[in-house]
């Protein structure tokens, strides 16, 4: 790894992913010639509607699938390198959509221990990591509970703790809130922000909730496997017309500003939070 790339967590170079369609066996591209660099400590959000290639991209970063063309480097390690695959997966952990389908054990702390157990870490160290991880996601008091008795948000936090216990530098969240109720979504988003800010983890959040993208460092909009927009949330969300033409919504506040400006008001178009809007008005 050369000096210039020291801060590079994820380096995606001209990546494409092909699959053959179920219907006519024609070759389809889920991801088309995508290049992307994500820096250490960044909070990066990938937006896109269903079928835009978001999940494919996530699975490629974790080495669960390999790109058809191009390279994916995680902390300088190529996902094509079979010897490094376990290092890659413990460097870039992944949290999935359905909390029920990623919890393995019948007791919360046993589940959190699953990752470190697979890595062959000594029991005393596992104990410490499990306790720390549960502390971070604020689930310590549930450590001896059965997972199926927890709420959706709690289950998802247990799943996050399970990844955290592997001590990854980067965590990929593949629509972690899609199956949760509003309060569960809030819990999980708070946890994700905390991981980024306090634990300095690189976060890649894949979502179709625009509101979750507002606090990101950078946002990428995927459409049909291509990166169509990339920039800070302010840059992205001021382009309301473009987002709408891609079939995406904008955050409520942005929507309001957009409608007000259409009616002839003249408000800054990069407002993302309620407080900002209140101040401006």
């Amino acid at each position: 790894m050369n000096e210039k790339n020291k801060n590079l967590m994820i380096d995606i170079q001209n990546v494409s992913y092909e699959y053959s369609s179920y219907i006519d066996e024609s070759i389809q591209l889920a991801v088309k010639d995508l290049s992307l660099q994500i820096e250490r400590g960044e909070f990066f959000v990938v937006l896109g509607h269903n079928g835009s290639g978001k999940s494919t991209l996530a699975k490629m970063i974790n080495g669960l699938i390999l790109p058809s063309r191009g390279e994916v480097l995680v902390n300088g390690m190529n996902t094509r390198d079979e010897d490094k695959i376990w290092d890659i997966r413990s460097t870039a952990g992944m949290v999935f959509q359905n909390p029920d389908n990623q919890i393995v054990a019948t007791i919360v702390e046993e589940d959190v221990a699953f990752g470190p157990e697979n890595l062959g870490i000594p029991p005393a160290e596992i104990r410490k990591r499990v306790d720390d991880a549960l502390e971070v996601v604020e689930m310590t008091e549930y450590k001896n509970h059965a997972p199926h008795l927890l709420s959706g948000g709690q289950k998802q936090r247990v799943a996050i703790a399970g990844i955290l216990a592997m001590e990854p530098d980067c965590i990929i969240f593949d629509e972690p809130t899609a199956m949760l109720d509003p309060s569960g979504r809030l819990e999980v988003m708070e946890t994700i922000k905390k991981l980024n800010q306090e634990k300095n983890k690189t976060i890649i959040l894949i979502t179709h909730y625009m509101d979750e993208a507002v606090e990101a460092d950078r946002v990428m909009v995927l459409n049909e496997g291509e990166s169509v927009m990339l920039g800070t949330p302010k840059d992205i969300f001021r382009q309301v017309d473009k987002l709408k033409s891609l079939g995406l919504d904008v955050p409520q506040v942005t929507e309001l500003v957009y409608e007000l400006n259409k009616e002839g008001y003249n408000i800054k178009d990069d407002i993302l939070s309620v407080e900002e809007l209140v101040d401006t008005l």
Partner: protein
Amino acid sequence: MLKDITIGQYFPGTSIVHKLDPRVKIIIVALFIASLFFVTNFVPYIFILAFIAGVISIAKLPVKFIIKGLKPLMFIILITFAINLFMTKGEVLVELGPLAITKEGLRQSVFMALRLVFLITGTSLLTLTTSPIALTDGIERLLSPFKRIGLPSHELAMMMTIALRFIPTLLEETDKIMKAQMARGADFESGNILSRAKNLVPLLVPLFINAFRRADELATAMEARCYRGGDGRTRLNELKFVTRDYAVLTGMTLFFAAIVSTRYIW
């Protein structure tokens, strides 16, 4: 309604019975079952009863829990009792038409019924005092010597853990699908056995499809968490024999040896 079903119920506690190494408990239960079949006399039953009562009181298990565990098997116990009562030849005590109760039959039926009751309570003591995870751990470790002859002990234990993990999830899902189908007019409760079985098809199809999808997602999630089989894997709670385990195991082995020996003494 399906949530009431509990399999391998565990009654959490902190007693010495709970804390014993699961391997010791599994071995003791195996010895217990084996020795029960050696008993030919009522006298050793007193000691077995004392053993069961002792474990229950040390583990502070509620007796009604144990009795509840016997209920579903009451039918089998009663049938065994009746067959033994009427089918054993010997000195006739009472005659009821074609059926006769003999003195030997009475003795035999009580004896067999008690054997069944002991078998059930004895084994349920294991599941009541051992968490499913400890149980599968114990089984994995006990079977690990057979790995050399190709027995996939880790894989078996992992399958058991996952099955236990998903029983409540799948029950919940069954409940949900049932209600959804009932809301659209499905009938699961009337008709004869054949039509009832037919009515289960719209329940089973989505349940199976969902189970396969879950399995697929779980496998991906496990891979993402670096699961690669049992080799090189460590455990959060490693099983370790302590003095207590050796002492209990030795004591219990002697106890059951004594029970077995009664067959040859009397």
